[in-house]
């Protein structure tokens, strides 16, 4: 077993989890990740996608080669390799995305799709659909001195007085062209089965939980000028619902009401902005500048 720390959780794992930092062995484990046999989904489980089944007893993910991942109780992830016994090439990607996304839902977090950095006055989340430029923008902010909080999944805890989040993934997944803009001689490890994505470790990693200062939702629009505008709470609710990580799995596990409570709390108490950028051409420099101006 190895000990890792992410999302404010102490994680014991039989597998290497290079995206997390090391944990504290003097503390009890909150989550255990192990290899072993898995009971198949029960009859009441809903087929949520081609590869995911869910019920109140957890979520089962089926990988391409037959490997199974079962996430349950918010504290247990079990991986059953295929009958061939070899490790699935999709394992890390599924584990770190849908696997942890589901586990966080089971623990009552609201996982949002995006990255985040830390600022002296709280964490700043960068959200948006795939291809919006979340990781590239997050990476740009890290280069300007804001410690990285997470990439891909921002797990919001909306149960306290103010919504807050914990540092999670200590590495960014960047597109090849995004890396070359910053570091043409890179030698980063490719993320398995993610097209042209590389894992970029960062030394600038945030420590400790913090309240959310603001959330930015990046949207690409035809011929849009790069601009940032505030969104009123009801609009923020709709936007954040769309940016909720694997929201179809939330519903199938019976967490819709809990997610609704978290969404309304975040929409009410955290400033939400839309960052518009054009679909066409290269606008990353303007986006970076707009974000820095807005944060300073």
């Amino acid at each position, binding site marked *: 077993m190895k000990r890792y720390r992410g999302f404010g959780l102490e994680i014991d794992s039989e597998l290497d989890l290079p995206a997390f930092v090391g944990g504290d062995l003097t503390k009890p484990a909150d989550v255990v990740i192990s290899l072993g046999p898995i009971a198949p989904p029960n009859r009441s489980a809903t087929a949520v996608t081609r590869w995911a089944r869910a019920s109140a007893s957890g979520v089962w993910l089926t990988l391409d080669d037959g490997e199974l991942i079962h996430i349950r109780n918010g504290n247990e992830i079990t991986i059953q390799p295929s009958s061939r016994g070899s490790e699935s090439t999709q394992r890390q990607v599924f584990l770190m995305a849908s696997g942890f996304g589901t586990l966080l839902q089971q623990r009552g977090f609201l996982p949002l799709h995006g990255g985040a950095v830390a600022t002296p006055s709280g964490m700043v989340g960068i959200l948006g659909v795939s291809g919006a430029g979340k990781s590239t923008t997050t990476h740009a902010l890290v280069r300007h001195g804001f410690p990285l909080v997470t990439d891909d999944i921002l797990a919001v805890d909306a149960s306290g007085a103010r919504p807050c989040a914990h540092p999670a993934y200590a590495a960014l997944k960047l597109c090849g062209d995004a890396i070359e803009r910053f570091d043409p001689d890179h030698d980063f490890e490719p993320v398995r089965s993610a097209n042209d994505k590389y894992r970029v470790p960062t030394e600038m990693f945030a420590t400790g939980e913090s309240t959310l200062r603001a959330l930015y939702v990046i949207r690409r629009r035809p011929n849009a000028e790069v601009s940032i505008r505030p969104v009123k709470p009801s609009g923020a609710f709709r936007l954040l619902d769309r940016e909720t990580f694997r929201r179809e799995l939330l519903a199938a596990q019976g967490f*819709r009401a809990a997610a609704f409570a978290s969404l*309304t709390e975040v*929409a009410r108490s955290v400033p939400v902005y839309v960052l518009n950028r054009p679909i066409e051409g290269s606008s990353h420099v303007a986006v970076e500048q707009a974000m820095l101006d807005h944060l300073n």
Partner: protein
Amino acid sequence: MATEQQLTLSNSEMICRSDDQVSVDLDGETVLLHTETGRYFTMNEVASAVWNLLVHPMSTADLLDGVKAEFDPPEAGDMSEDLLRFLTRLVTIGVLSRS
């Protein structure tokens, strides 16, 4: 499943918020969860004001009086029709019950 015809509300019927919903006011606009289907709905400020009047069970006629008092509309006749259409829609969605 009741048909649209059966659901059309009359002017004196008693209505109340359904037990199958949770609503939250966000700066004067209501967001709603229909717990049975898991669907979300958002209401604009006018619809939210009507929803806020529905804290207790009341007749559609009393609700109309309340809405008139709140908005002071120039043509109350049109308002009544719009209001009944809106309430019928809420019943269809499942967030409003006829009691």
